[in-house]
């Protein structure tokens, strides 16, 4: 301890130099929008690079399960093609060419917090933009929040700040999906009108009104419901189809007309 103090007292001016430079840098970055953006991009790039390295090693252990998932999805798609079922449940296409899908991999996934995020290994150079939806092979998993050159940060559906427009599959009554903050597979649908016909076991799908997700992507099954807000709306409990604790290959869904829709929505 005495040695350490002696060493530090010898390096006193260097420590003061570092300390003062740090303060000056923080002040500079705080007042500099571009610097903040650069710092933020650096953070995403750094976290992405670290997690990508871990993921490169890790993915070899999960290849079997990823393959299984993809084979299952392929089988489902083939079945739908053969029977020409109009209602494609895995990757719906509401208007031809309106939505395009970019494949990616989840390289970092949080589940233990109240405001969870995840990182995917695709970024600006792959055409990823903020506010794009992210799907797994089983359903939705989040919305792109920020992008760097090679990576993107996604707000997970396990984030209490995220609300997604959803609907009842058989009746089209819509509400908002939000995470309860407890079990990673349990969600709530709020603001569903009281006249909506609800049955336990019914499927909840995306409503498609936000323009982030196309309509009809399955989310989960109803496990229970109750009347709230003075019996004016339903609160539904659902169990999601996606296991948020085990994510691998995902798709980023891009809506070609999103900016057009948003400009009509928000510009009066």
């Amino acid at each position, binding site marked *: 301890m005495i040695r350490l103090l002696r060493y530090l007292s010898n390096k*006193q*001016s*260097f420590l*003061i*130099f570092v300390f*003062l*430079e740090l*303060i*000056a*840098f*923080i*002040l*500079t*970055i*705080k*007042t*500099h929008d*571009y*610097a903040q953006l*650069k710092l933020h991009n650096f953070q995403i790039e750094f976290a992405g690079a670290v997690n990508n390295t871990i993921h490169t090693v890790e993915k070899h252990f999960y290849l079997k399960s990823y393959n299984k998932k993809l084979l299952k999805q392929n089988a489902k798609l083939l079945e739908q093609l053969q029977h020409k079922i109009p209602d494609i449940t895995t990757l719906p296409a509401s208007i031809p060419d309106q939505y395009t899908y970019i494949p990616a991999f989840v390289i970092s996934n949080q589940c233990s917090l109240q405001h969870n995020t995840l990182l995917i290994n695709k970024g600006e150079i792959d055409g990823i933009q903020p506010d794009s939806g992210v799907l797994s092979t089983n359903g939705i998993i989040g919305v792109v929040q920020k992008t760097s050159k090679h990576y993107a940060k996604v707000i997970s559906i396990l984030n209490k700040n995220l609300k997604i427009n959803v609907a009842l599959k058989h009746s089209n009554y819509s509400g908002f999906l939000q995470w309860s903050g407890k079990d990673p597979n349990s969600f709530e649908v709020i603001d569903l009108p009281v006249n909506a016909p609800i049955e336990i076991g019914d499927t909840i799908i995306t409503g498609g009104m936000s323009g982030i997700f196309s309509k009809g992507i399955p989310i989960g099954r109803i496990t229970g419901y109750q009347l709230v807000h003075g019996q004016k709306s339903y609160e539904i409990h659902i169990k999601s189809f996606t296991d948020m604790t085990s994510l691998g290959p995902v798709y980023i869904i891009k809506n070609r007309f999103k900016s057009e829709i948003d400009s009509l929505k928000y510009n009066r």
Partner: protein
Amino acid sequence: MSFRIKYILILLVFLILQIIWFNHIRLFNHFTPIVFIYPFLILPLSKSESLNLFAAFVTGLIIDLVSNTGGIFAATAVFITYMRKIYFMASKNPVQKIQEINIGKINSLQKIIYFGVFISLAHIMIFFLDAFNAGLVISKLQSILINTIISLIFIIFFDLIFFNPAKK
């Protein structure tokens, strides 16, 4: 007049000059001389280094507050003040006792080189912190060089006033 009082006066004069005059100069439309670092360049290395660093930080911060530049000038002033010791330690004939170096006693050519190095460092740092892009700093080397020459001319002029060889 004791050195300390003289030095504080020089510091205040250069701070005010930088804020009210030099910061508003746009020579050939976009060159702004940086002269506020002069007091830190002429400080003898024997004086308390920590105190010098704090003085540099506060001076830079005042300019930053006035110019709304965050901490760009503070970072530059602290950097310049600290790097002086390293400059002399790394110079061709390193002096055994760094505390013995007195800027007022080094010859004219050495002094011009010394001022030139630190003024260019200051301009590079200010430009880098302002643009936050190292690539842009390299592409703007010409503009940094011209800025350095202009600042150097002003600083040599001030140095002749404060360290007039005829007075020695």
